[in-house]
């Protein structure tokens, strides 16, 4: 075994890259669930974002426009979900699953002629001298821009949900939609906006996959990342900062086990790959065992259809 080849700095940098797609998708889904909607279509929205971002980045040569297009694409497909569940009152679980299936198929159709193309390179932070400082420079000052943006989004969502009036209203809709409605808040409108935000974030996460992490377009390339993002929201018990912890843990375990294998460590890979899911199940068990805590965290109206009767 050769541990000298394992560089902790390189490990951390690559775990951040591996974690960013699920981090973005999860923070979007967190806002959606906080408003009382369960959208299981994260995987579908991610892959739509991945292909929309890829197409626009390739056609315009600008990854930034690609990321914007990915947000628009993700939001557009989530709008279908919003119309179906909020106006037509369809079952959210079934609609979300349908959204995933539709997204995977539609993305394959859109991306048919884009396989094997190289996307334009996305820039990295490079501050003269500071980015060259050993260890610190590499750890803090020389990631690609989207990593900083993803962390800023987490901070922004935390601030919005806990420190602003808008966040309070959104949470009210998720906790008790009848009460929020009685107070005169437009529950449906709030939820649609949350769903659109969730779609945009999932799209952004998908585009990070196709423009930075892999970077290429292949059908079905999200390969289950959307489901991990869904598990992450539960893991984080609907708290924004814990999304970072969860995402870096998920990403970290993936990257660490691959690196340990490359270093020749004899580790039980299958067990290590299972751990994040096991932890999620344990979190779920703890939450449901303790009713008081569960009621503090999970939005009370999660997944329930709201229909104004008067």
């Amino acid at each position: 075994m050769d541990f000298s080849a394992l560089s902790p700095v390189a490990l951390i940098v690559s775990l951040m890259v591996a974690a960013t797609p699920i981090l973005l998708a999860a923070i979007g889904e967190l806002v959606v669930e906080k408003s009382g909607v369960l959208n299981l279509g994260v995987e579908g929205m991610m892959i739509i974002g991945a292909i929309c971002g890829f197409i626009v980045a390739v056609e315009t040569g600008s990854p930034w426009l690609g990321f914007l297009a990915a947000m628009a694409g993700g939001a557009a497909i989530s709008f279908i979900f919003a119309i179906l569940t909020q106006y037509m009152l369809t079952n959210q679980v079934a609609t979300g699953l349908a959204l995933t299936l539709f997204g995977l198929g539609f993305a394959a159709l859109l991306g048919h002629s884009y396989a094997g193309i190289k996307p334009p390179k996305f820039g990295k932070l490079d501050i003269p001298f500071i980015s060259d400082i050993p260890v610190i420079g590499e750890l803090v000052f020389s990631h690609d821009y989207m990593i900083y943006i993803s962390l800023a989004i987490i901070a922004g969502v935390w601030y919005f949900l806990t420190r602003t009036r808008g966040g309070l209203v959104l949470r009210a809709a998720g906790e008790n939609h009848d009460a929020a409605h009685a107070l005169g808040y437009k529950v449906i409108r709030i939820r649609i906006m949350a769903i659109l935000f969730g779609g945009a974030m999932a799209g952004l996460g998908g585009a990070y996959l196709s423009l930075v992490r892999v970077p290429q377009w292949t059908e079905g390339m999200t390969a289950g990342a959307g489901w991990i993002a869904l598990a992450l929201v539960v893991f984080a018990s609907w708290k924004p900062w814990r999304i970072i912890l969860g995402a870096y843990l998920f990403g970290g375990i993936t990257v660490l086990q691959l690196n340990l294998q490359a270093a020749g460590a004899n580790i039980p890979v299958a067990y290590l790959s299972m751990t994040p899911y096991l932890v999620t199940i344990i979190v779920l068990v703890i939450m449901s065992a303790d009713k008081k805590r569960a009621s503090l965290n999970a939005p009370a109206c999660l997944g329930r259809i709201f229909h104004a009767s008067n």
Partner: protein
Amino acid sequence: MKLFKTLLAGAAIAVGLTGAASAGEKLKVGFIYVGPTGDFGWSYEHDQGRLAIEAALGDKVETTYVESVPESADSERVMTQMALSGTDLIFATSFNYMDHVLNVAKKFPNVKFEHATGFKRADNVSTYSARFYEGRTVIGHIAGNMTETNTIGYIASYPIPEVIRGINSAYIAAKKVNPDVKMKIVWVFSWFDPGKEADAATALISQGADIIMQHTDSPAAMTIAEEKGIYAFGQASDMAQFGPNARLSAIIDNWGPYYVARAQAAIDGTWTSTDTWDGIKPGMVGIGAFSDKIPADVQASATAIKDALSAGTMHSFTGPLNKQDGSVWLKDGETADDGTLAGMNFYVEGIDGEVPQ
């Protein structure tokens, strides 16, 4: 409940009718793939084989396929559905469909099944595979010559005999030309997960690998190799478009001729359960064009190896070879028999690490 039963009976009759109607006319051929047909790797090449059937047999056949079928009980449902809707010949194109194929085959004795890379057969189940390890010998030879860090990175999928055979074959060939060569192996436990495959390539490169081989289905590793300025080999497909500078050569699966022959046999009524394992010679395993990054002398020696494998004058596993624990596997000049190869579950001497259980 009663309504449900009526509906079910109605559906069964409808299925029966379509089955009878199509029986006399066209041969219906169904395919199930483990990944998307657009993976530009494994499933893509099987789909090329399906298209070859259509091109060769025209209106005598009708083909269908289902992609991204998990290697679980889901595959049983898909195959049952195919059999119920009158499919005559079903190709199941991934190793772990094996037991599911046999289960479905038992229920539909009149439907013919072809299972790729498996080893369990029945009267209506054939198996077929390609001797990919012959291709690994050629690219292992190139890798052994080209590596400057003496470290080859290998992205492996599942610890099944086919994958272990590939690792051994590549290592033996690389070691022959470069006694110092080391092979770093990473198991990703997936056939198709571009994100994870890319992470695995990054991990291997950061630990000194300057040539990447893979036994997974997507071109993600090729893309990373291109980005980091190192070398890689196309897997299952040529993959040249993903790594114009990185790609040295490729192992290309060519299923078309076999698929056409089997469909023709089913039409003629001469189809029987067989076990096919073809290599470079019949063209089931193709070697992609050599990159001009490979020095001329290495190109020549690699071509010589390819020709010798094709002519049968050389075998990828020729003694003296020891197993990893140092015990003798093959004596000088002895070659491995197909039975041992088909069930290979050990590394040869010199490879570090253990086969995951």
